[in-house]
C-alpha cells in the first residue's frame, strides 16, 4: 500500500542529491585561486572600509516587502493577459476588481508614507 508513495521518497532523495551534488561539483571542478584582494568583501570596486557586516536600516524591509507584493501582482497579470480574449469582459471585470483592491492598498501605503525614504 505504502509503495504508492515511493515516488515522493524518490523525489526527496533526488532533490537532496541535486542540491548537494551541484555544490560539491562546483567545488570539485571550479578552479580556486584565492588571493587577498579577491577574498575581500566587494564594495563597488573601491577598497572596503570597516567591517563587512553592518546593520541594515529596517526601511529596507518595508521596501522589499512592498516590492514583493506589487511584483507578484504583475505575475498574476501575465496568465490573464495570455487568456485575455477567451476570458472576455468577465475576465476584464475580474482583473479590474483585483487591481482595484491593489490600488487601495497602494494608496494606503503611499498615504502612510511607507514609500518615502526619510
Amino acid at each position, binding site marked *: *500500500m505504502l509503495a504508492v*508513495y515511493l515516488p515522493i521518497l524518490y523525489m526527496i532523495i533526488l532533490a537532496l542529491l541535486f542540491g548537494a551534488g551541484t555544490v560539491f561539483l562546483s567545488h570539485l571542478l571550479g578552479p580556486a585561486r584565492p588571493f587577498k584582494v579577491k577574498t575581500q568583501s566587494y564594495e563597488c570596486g573601491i577598497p572596503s572600509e570597516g567591517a563587512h557586516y553592518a546593520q541594515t536600516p529596517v526601511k529596507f524591509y518595508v521596501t522589499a516587502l512592498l516590492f514583493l507584493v506589487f511584483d507578484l501582482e504583475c505575475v498574476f497579470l501575465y496568465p490573464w493577459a495570455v487568456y485575455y*480574449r477567451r476570458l*472576455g*469582459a468577465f475576465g476584464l471585470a475580474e482583473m479590474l476588481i483585483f487591481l482595484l483592491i491593489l490600488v*487601495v492598498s497602494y*494608496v*494606503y501605503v503611499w*498615504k502612510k508614507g511607507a514609500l518615502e525614504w526619510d
Partner: protein
Amino acid sequence: MVTFKVILPANDYMAVLPQIVLVSTALLVLMMGVFKKLVNASAPGFTALAGSLLALGCVLFVGHHGAPSSTFGGMVLVDGFSFFLSLVICIIIALTILVSLNYGNFFNCMRTGEYYSLLLMAGVGMIFMATAGNLILLFVALETMSISIYALTGFHKKQLKSSEAALKYFLLGAFGSAFLLYGFAFIYGATGSLDIIKIAGFIKTHPQMLNMKFLVAAFVLTIAGIGFKISMVPFHMWTPDTYEGAPTSVTGFMATGVKAAAFAALIRVILVPLAPMQHSWVTIMWIAAFLTMTVGNIIALVQDNIKRMLAYSSIAHAGYILLGFLAGTGLAQAGMLYYLMVYAFMNIGAFGVVALLCKKGEEYTSISDFAGLGFKYPLLGLVMSVFLFSLAGIPPTGGFMGKFYLFTQALRSGYVWLVVAAGVNSVISIYYYLRVVVVMYFSPQASENSIVLGSVSPGIVIALATAATAVLVMGIFPSYFFSLAGNSIFSLM
C-alpha cells in the same frame, strides 16, 4: 476588433455576498482611515458597523433554502451549516465593533481605519473557514483570520504586554498552521483529494484506508493545528498571555469568533469526513477533552486578573464543546453549534463589561477593580451577573441549556465518566465566576469611588443589552435555537 462576450461562470455569487460586503467595507474603512481630513474621526467605526450589519442582513436575506450545494468548483459550500455559522460570525463582528466603538474612546489607536479593516478581514476569514469545501481555501481563510488577529492583538503599540501577546500568538500560531498544513498534506496523500466531499466519499468507498497509520497521522496533525486555535490542552499555553495582553475588545473577538470558526472547521474537516475512523481517535480526544476542561477550570480558580480568568474559562469551555465532538451524533453537533452561539453572546458580553472599566490609556482588569460595581451601577452589575451565571451554566441562562444539550448527548453516546468529570468541572467553575459576582455585590470595604468606569456610549449599551437578552432568551426558549442548529447540521454537505 475585439468582441466581448460576457460569459458569467456558473457560480452562485449570492453564496459569498456577506463576504463581498465585508471585504468592500474593509477597503472603504481602510481608505477612510488614510484620508483623515475628508472624514470624521469616528467615521471608520460607524462605517464598519454599517458594513457588518449589512453583511448580517445579507446572511439573513440569502438565507438557506433547498438542498445543500456547492459552488465555485466545490470551493464554497452552500448549506444550513454555512448559514448558521455565517450568522453567528456576523453577529460576533457587529457586537465586537459596538464594543470597540466605546473602547476607542480610551485608546486612540482603536479608532483608526486599520483596526476596523483588520477586524472585518478577520471576519471574512472566519466565514470562509465555516463555508469552505476545499482544504486549500480552508487554510487560506484560516491564515486570513489569523494574520489579522495577530496584528489586532498587538494593537496597543506602546504596551509591552500587548506586543508580547502578539508575538507569542504569532509564533505559536505559525507552528499551529504548519501542523495543520502538514495534516492536510497527509489527508491529500491518503485520499487523493482536497475536496472535503470527495474525501468523505473516498473514505466511504475504501474502508481498508481506515486501518492505515497514514490517516491517523493526518488526523493527529490536523487536530493539533485546529486544537491550537480552539486552545485545546495541550495546545493552550498561549491563551492566557494573549488574552491578557490583547486589547479587551479584541480578546472578546478572539475568544468567540476564532473559536466558532475553528470548531466549524473541526466539524467540516474531521467529524464528518473522518467519522468512520472514530474508533481510532476516541481515546486521544477523551483525554484531550478531560484535560481541557480540568486544566482550564483548576487554573482559573487562582486568577486575579479577570482577562486571565476568562482566558482559562475559555479553555474550559472548549473542553465542554469537545464533549459534543466525542459524542459525534447529529444532535451532539447541533449542541456544539448551540453552545458556540450562546458562548459568543455571553463571552463578548463579559469582555464588553471588562472593556468599560477603563480610563484614558489604561485598563482596569483586576477582579478587585469590580468591587462595589453592583451597587454603584446596578444595571451594569446585573448584565455582568447574567453573563457570569451563563458562563457558569446556571439556569435560566443559555449557558445552562448549552451544557444540558452537550452533556445529554455525550451521556447517550456512553461517555458516562467524562460527563461526570464535566459535571464536577462545572461545579468548580461556579466558584470563580461567582467570585466576581461576590466582589461586585458583597464588598462593603470598597469605597464608592474606587471603580473606574469610562464613558458609556449608546453603542455598548445596545451591545450589552443585546447580548444579555440573547443569553436569557436562548436559556428560556432554547428549542427554537436548538432546532435551528439541528437543521443546519442535518443539511450538512
